[in-house]
């Protein structure tokens, strides 16, 4: 089978199922200096699937609110625009892309559970590194999207992707190596291109591109967070599969993040305590 060029794949990205406009528009609105809360709440309110999911998550124990929020407007006031943007993005992506029927040999249940698990791990880890809420929200979104290139490849090039899965099963190797061997490009490259198309910020796209091989840097980056969050999700059995393989932890990332192994164990336990929120997002 012929290998694919990245340009060929990128040219096809437009034929993937659309993510809701509100998700893409929110990335733009958020860059405005004085976002208009009424306008944002109104826009989100037009997608009732998203509204229901966002409110359920906002009221889950993950955010530990004292009282329930009943509307998107309230959620923005109580949780802040950043957190609501994260929830809308997560709800929009999981609800709309998951409705894509398909895909022989590509288990969407496992895929989304791993993605959402990594998202929750990334948020925890980010807050552990510094208490910056914006970084934590970015980490959540990036965790959710880090493997989205797999979904794109499996949807757009099912025959090639099936061969890569078969190769992986035969050699019991890392999926990334199977993709290089069979398809010629990998899900990290494709995912970054897709995130760019969806107008996510450059640091998010870069972290998706490099989540299997973090680059050199003086300080801890979003790429490091996603690299380790991916490993945490595997450690927590997101997904549970007998073929699952632990990815290799970059020593550079581990040094930069600067945790010790006991702290890492505690972090796993914290993330594990929120397993049911992952299920809620995928309900």
């Amino acid at each position, binding site marked *: 089978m012929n290998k694919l060029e990245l340009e060929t794949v990128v040219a096809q990205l437009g034929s993937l199922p659309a993510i809701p406009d509100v998700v893409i528009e929110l990335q733009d609105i958020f860059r405005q200096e004085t976002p208009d809360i009424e306008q944002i709440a109104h826009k989100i309110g037009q997608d009732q699937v998203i509204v229901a999911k966002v409110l359920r998550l906002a009221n889950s124990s993950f955010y530990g609110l004292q009282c329930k929020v009943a509307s998107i407007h309230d959620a923005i006031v109580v949780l802040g625009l950043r957190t609501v943007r994260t929830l809308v993005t997560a709800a929009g992506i999981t609800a709309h892309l998951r409705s894509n029927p398909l895909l022989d040999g590509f288990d969407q249940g496992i895929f989304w559970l791993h993605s959402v698990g990594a998202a929750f791990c990334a948020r925890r880890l980010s807050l552990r590194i510094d208490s910056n809420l914006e970084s934590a929200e970015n980490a959540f979104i990036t965790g959710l999207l880090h493997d989205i290139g797999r979904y794109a490849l499996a949807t757009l090039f099912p025959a090639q992707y099936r061969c890569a899965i078969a190769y992986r099963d035969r050699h019991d*190797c890392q999926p990334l190596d199977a993709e290089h061997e069979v398809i010629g490009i990998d899900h990290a490259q494709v995912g970054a291109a897709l995130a760019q198309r969806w107008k996510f910020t450059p640091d998010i796209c870069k972290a998706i591109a490099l989540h299997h091989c973090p680059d050199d840097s003086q300080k801890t980056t979003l790429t490091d967070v996603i690299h380790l969050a991916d490993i945490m999700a595997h*450690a927590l059995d997101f997904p549970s599969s007998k073929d*699952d393989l632990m990815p*290799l*932890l970059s*020593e550079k990332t*581990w040094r930069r993040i600067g945790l010790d192994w006991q702290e890492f*164990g505690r972090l*796993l336990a914290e993330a594990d305590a929120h397993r049911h929120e992952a299920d809620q997002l995928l309900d």
Partner: protein
Amino acid sequence: MSRIIQKIPLDRATPGMVLAEEAVSSSGIALLRHGTTLTEKHLASLRLHEVGEIGVFAAPGEPDASTDSEIRASLETEKNHVERLFRHARINTTMEALYRAVLEFRLERIR
């Protein structure tokens, strides 16, 4: 009072045990409420509804030998599971340390 909850197959249930959660039939119908002290009549009814497993409170001060061996078996299974997850991964000191940290966390979660 915090008490240990055990899942046991119905044929190991005896009168006097206290339900730690509702007993549910094979078709999902709730039959007996949490907190019920089981009688012979209850047990007969649960058998009739083909209940597989029930959750009961462990009797205080009476460590159950079979439960200990059940826990040991779960720990062993979990260890095999983690070893399988790391089957090609323990290639340097960092990965070996990661393996140990994950194993410790996973075993602790069962204990």
